[in-house]
Structure formats: C-alpha cells, structure tokens
C-alpha cells in the first residue's frame, strides 16, 4: 500500500508491504538509527517515537498505521526542551550503554511538553514503559527533573 507520512517534518510518499513495522520503515528505509529495537516484544520502549506528538512503540505499529500522520524521532527533536534533556542527561550521567536513551528522551520530551513542572511521581509514571538495564533509573529521573527546571528557568 502507498502511504503518505510526515517524518521529522519531511513528507514521504512510500510504498510499504502490509507487514512492514514502523520501526523498520524508520531505521531501514529512512535511515533514522536513533530508533532502537530492544525487546521486539512491546515491553522495553527503546523503539519509542512520537506519533502525532504522542509516544508510541514503533515495534508495535505497522508502518501503514502512520498513514496521514506525523512521526517524530530523536533526530527531529531540536528545540529548547530537547536541548535541555540532552544537557541534563550528560550532566547527570543518565546514559551508560545508551541503548534505551533515545526512547527515554522521547518519553521525557513528551512529559515536558505536556507538563511544565512535573513531579518525581510524574516522571516515574511516564517512564513505566521505558526499560533501562544499566542506570537503575535514578540518574534518568534526576536528569528529567533537571531538564524540567532548565526549561522553566
């Protein structure tokens, strides 16, 4: 089927097989390698992208489900909020192997966009669907809260 989809602001008109998953469209056809395949079983959130501005797991969507909609990956996040999250991740050592990081940033970005002053509870609730096997989460939560302070400062 032919789909029209806007990815990181760029319009694409692509022929896809029905069984093509969104994560493969993004990585293999469009070269957006920030999108990671972690578990491939809908559990880890490493493949998280924004669909019409909301976080979804791109390994659990067929590419055709993005038809007529917009998709944003880490490559497409370039505003102050995204910069604040990147900076606080570095400062708080919130990435070790980095495998979960793109998904984490996407989820935190969405939280900061929908809530100006999130609490620690908000951050924990937001990250339920993003697993990290390295950091133990504490540094990630700290980074998210710090990014929120940078944004509202």
């Amino acid at each position, binding site marked *: 089927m032919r789909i029209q989809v806007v990815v990181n602001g760029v319009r694409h008109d692509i022929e896809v097989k029905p*069984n093509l998953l969104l994560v493969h469209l993004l990585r293999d056809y469009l070269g957006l390698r920030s999108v990671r395949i972690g578990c491939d*079983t*809908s559990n880890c959130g490493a493949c*998280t992208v924004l669909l019409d501005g909301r976080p979804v797991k791109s*390994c*659990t969507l067929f590419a055709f489900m993005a038809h007529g909609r917009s998709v944003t990956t880490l490559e497409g996040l370039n505003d102050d909020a995204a910069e604040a999250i990147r900076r606080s991740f570095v400062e708080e050592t919130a990435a070790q192997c980095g495998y979960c990081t793109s998904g984490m940033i996407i989820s935190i970005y969405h939280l900061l966009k929908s809530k100006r002053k999130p609490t620690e509870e908000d951050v924990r609730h937001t990250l339920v*669907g993003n697993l990290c096997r390295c950091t133990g989460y504490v540094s990630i939560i700290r980074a998210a809260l710090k990014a929120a302070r940078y944004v509202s400062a």
Partner: protein
Amino acid sequence: MYPRNFKLIWPSSLEEALEAVEAGAVPLAGGQSLIPMMKLRLIAPESVVYLGAIRDLDYIKELNDKFAIGALTTHSRIASELREGSPLISKAASEIGDVQVRNMGTIGGSVAHADPAADYPAALIALGAVIRAVSKNGIREIPAERFFTGPYQTALDHGELVMEVVVPKTACSVGYAKFTRIATDFAIAAVAVRLSAHDGVVEDISIGISGVFAHPIRARWIEDALIGKKLADEVLSRAINAEVVHEVISDPRASKEFRLKAFRAMARRAILEAYENSKV
C-alpha cells in the same frame, strides 16, 4: 520479528469493515495485542481489516444517564477525559500497561481481546456496562457481565464487531485496586467496586474481578454478604475470606494460593476505598 505478510483491507466505512470481517478478515484496532501476537506468529491472518481507518468510531458521547464510548477510543483518552465523569473506567484505563500502550490501545480492542487479566472488564462489570456489538444484521447489546465467556473468549459472534461500550453514570462511589509484580503488567488480581451506603450501611454494591479466574466475573457472593451491613472489620473479612467456588488461575507469575491472597487483599482495598469515598 516480522509477522507473516497479509492482505490489508482499508475500509472507508463501518459497512465495508463489517463485510470484510464477515468474509473472515481479522480486525486491527490499536494493534497492542494483535501485533505482538502476529510477531510471535501465534496467529498469521490471511487478511486484516484496519479499523483505525474509520475515525468516526473514536468518540466519547455524553448522553443523559450514560457515556457511550466508541470502540476506537484510546485508553489515554478515556483515562483523561472521563476522570470526572466516570472515575472507575478512567482509573481502569490509566492502569493499563504504560503511556505508549495507552496511546495506541483501544477499548474495543481490549474487550474483544478479552485477556482474563485485562483492566476494563472488572470496571465494566462493576458499573453494569453494556457492550454494543454491530454486524450486517444490526446492533446487539450484551451486558458486560455476560460478555466475557472464557480466556480470550467473548459473546461476540462471527461477523460482529464491538461498536461501542456504554457506561451508566452513577452517583455511587467507586474503588479500584490492581496487583502486579511489574509496573506495565497485566493484573495478577484486579478488583473494581461500585457502592452506595447510607449512614455507613451498604445499600448497594457490585464487584468486578479480573486476573483471578478464567474470565472476569462479578463477585456476587461477596456483594450478598455486605448488603445491609456496616463494614466492620469482621464483616468485611468474613465476606472476603469466604470460600471461592470458581477455579483460581495458576501461572508462572503467581500460584493459585498466592493469587487468591492477592485477590483478597485487592478486594479489601477496593471495597474500603469505595466505602471511604461514600462518606465524603
């Protein structure tokens, strides 16, 4: 993991979707249960009809004494938009999986999938909700209490789709308690309660349970033991600890004995939450 390829049907109306389903196509809504199953090749449908193409099944309509929720309405939307109007269904929606799953998954998909441990069924049973199913022959109403018939089995017939879920408005107070080992997970035991009390005496109560038995059920044996009573500790304990005649599930996440304990703890928590709410 790639699902096997399939023929995709992109319907432009509900009628077209019903025709496809009648002819054997598998409906796809948010994909949060179907796609994982297709990736694991637990199922490999020949053809799939994408309900997401029918945008007019995504709605929450407020009628006089009820809310009608379109099958394609996401868990996120239900959680946020019904927080005031129907706090029990909103709470159940907000307990599902994680943000990402709630942004895609739909109420129609959840009830049709009928996971014995899903969150909505307990709430729908406690609220006395009705599932409205549609087929080429018209619309049929099925009370939630009779909709879930077995693990992943429902009262839907071949060729039927869930069209909407109708939730009565209620002045009763409500409670919801869910036990899981991992935050994103399905319930080991979930209990939903709707209750009204006068001067501390329970006048009416209905209790829905998910996760504990082969399918979600209504706990009439507990309700009967509480109606007309004040919820003193020994009254509540006797009701909750009464012998359970239904077969309790055992699986790698929880043994039968552990699950029964979790169920009793969640029942106590949900009933007391509703009871406390009834006093304010």
